[in-house]
């Protein structure tokens, strides 16, 4: 692959004695939607959280291998973890707006980066809310607590919040699984739009969704990568028997 934005080499991860990720080698292309596909419990979410080092929060995690981001290994102990996290916006399964107003949710990341003053913040907040296709719905209620939005709106708010720190990559962990079909469609459309400027890595176990939006697929099963490649090839011409079984719906 021509200069992938992330390449993972020989990644192994243990929770206590449990071998969760087994010898993972993945390359993630620049400005494309990469979907990590696989049945529940195969380590997809763990892989995603390893990318922005959120696995650090758990006790008793052991990691070996390399994750190269812009030619730097982000798993080395003395790296600036907050710097890595800023490069990757995270969209989690259940939207988790911060306990503050809609405006402050988006402004949070900006303030952390040292931006102050409403006059400077306002245009940026608007820009990112527009990027997440939420501006028209919330422009009159920016002072409301974020928790009053619908779940679908909350997820788009989380997207806007993530975009506000100018990430290069958007990590999305089944971002539509808690949403109604219409909100899901909005998020998917937004991803198609956003991939012009961002690399998107999305975890899902919904095959149809993967078919709709993936450019590149990584198929995982029980902690191993079974197959990876461009989406069309993966769906039309799978190489591994496991992939064929999965596509046929033999297991979920």
């Amino acid at each position, binding site marked *: 692959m021509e200069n992938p934005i992330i390449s993972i080499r020989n990644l192994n991860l243990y929770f206590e004695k449990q071998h969760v990720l087994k010898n993972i080698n993945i390359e993630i292309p620049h400005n494309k939607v990469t979907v990590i596909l696989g049945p529940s419990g195969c380590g997809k979410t763990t892989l995603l959280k390893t990318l*922005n080092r*959120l696995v650090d*929060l758990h*006790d008793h995690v052991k990691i070996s291998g390399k994750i190269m981001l812009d030619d730097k290994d982000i798993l080395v102990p003395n790296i600036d973890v*907050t*710097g890595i*996290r*800023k490069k*990757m*916006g*995270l969209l*989690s399964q*259940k939207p*988790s707006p*911060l*306990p*503050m107003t809609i405006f402050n949710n988006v402004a*949070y*990341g900006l303030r*952390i*980066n040292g931006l102050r003053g409403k006059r400077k913040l306002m245009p940026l907040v608007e820009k990112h809310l527009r990027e997440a296709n939420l501006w028209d719905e919330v422009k009159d209620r920016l002072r409301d*607590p974020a*928790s009053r939005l619908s779940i679908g709106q909350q997820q788009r708010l*989380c997207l806007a*919040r*993530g975009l*506000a*720190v100018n990430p290069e990559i958007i*990590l999305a962990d089944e971002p539509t699984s808690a949403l109604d079909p219409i909100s899901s469609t909005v998020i998917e459309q937004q991803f198609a739009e956003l991939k012009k400027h961002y690399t998107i890595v999305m975890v899902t176990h919904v095959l149809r969704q993967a078919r709709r939006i993936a450019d590149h697929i990584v198929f995982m099963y029980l902690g191993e990568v079974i197959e990876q490649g461009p989406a069309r090839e993966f769906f039309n011409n799978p190489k591994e028997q496991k992939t064929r079984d999965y596509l046929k719906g033999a297991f979920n």
Partner: protein
Amino acid sequence: MYNFVRKTKDTISEAWVKFVLMLIFLLPLVILASLLNKSWMVIQTSGIGDLLFSSVWRPMAGQFGFKPFIISSVYVTVLGLIITAPVCLLSAIYLTYYGSKRMTAFMQPIIDILAGIPSVIYGVWGVLIIVPFTGRFLAPLFGYESTGFSILSGGLVLAVMLIPFILNILIEIFRTVPHEQMEASLSLGASKWESIKHVAVRRSLPGIVSAFALGLSRAFGETIAVLMVVGNVVGIPRSPFDTGYPLPALIANNYGEMLSIPMFDSALMFAALVLLMVVVCFNLMSRYVIIFMEKRQ
């Protein structure tokens, strides 16, 4: 027949449950009524204004001004809370977000033991350690002269007694902050401390306020430990190194003794009434603050 027995049992047990619940509901009302009833005499003779705001305390002459006692109580309580608040907040944050699981498991029984120590032991410890410490070290340090039996000693003893009580509530509260919100903040590039400050503390603010309000109510009513270290001299304290005489100490020291003095009994009941009202007000106010803050989140 069998069904009739079952039904009757059901009715009886339901009535019993309701009755017990009623008792709990009536208890504060009964206490309030009896205190009001007993203190009515002194209220009628002296008037509420005089009782609360006069500082003349001459029971023999029938003059009961509770101002020195009320001020002592407020002084000791507020001082105790001010000393203990940052300690509790920071330890709770440390135990929830920084300490390892082993550390927390090690500290939990220690906190519980502290919570279970009888207050008279805190009082003895206060007399042995805190009082000399205040008298010989702290007072000269700030240019005061003091025996050590003082408002400050009371505040310090209270602060220590409040730690396990408030700390346990705070830890519970911080544990209810969703993991995902902390992760969301961290994944935006916020540092750990920023995430704690802006997400965990902000989200827990209503709970933190109520924890402190509960602590305040408890501190206000704490009797024996405070009584042992504040000196119990009637007078309005001018500095933390002065002696004080809080309301609960007044009641505990005098009730059952100088009751031959006319109206003394009634005056002490009035003190108890004030105590009760203050604690109830704390509770209502903190409840209001919590509701207000939860609405804004």
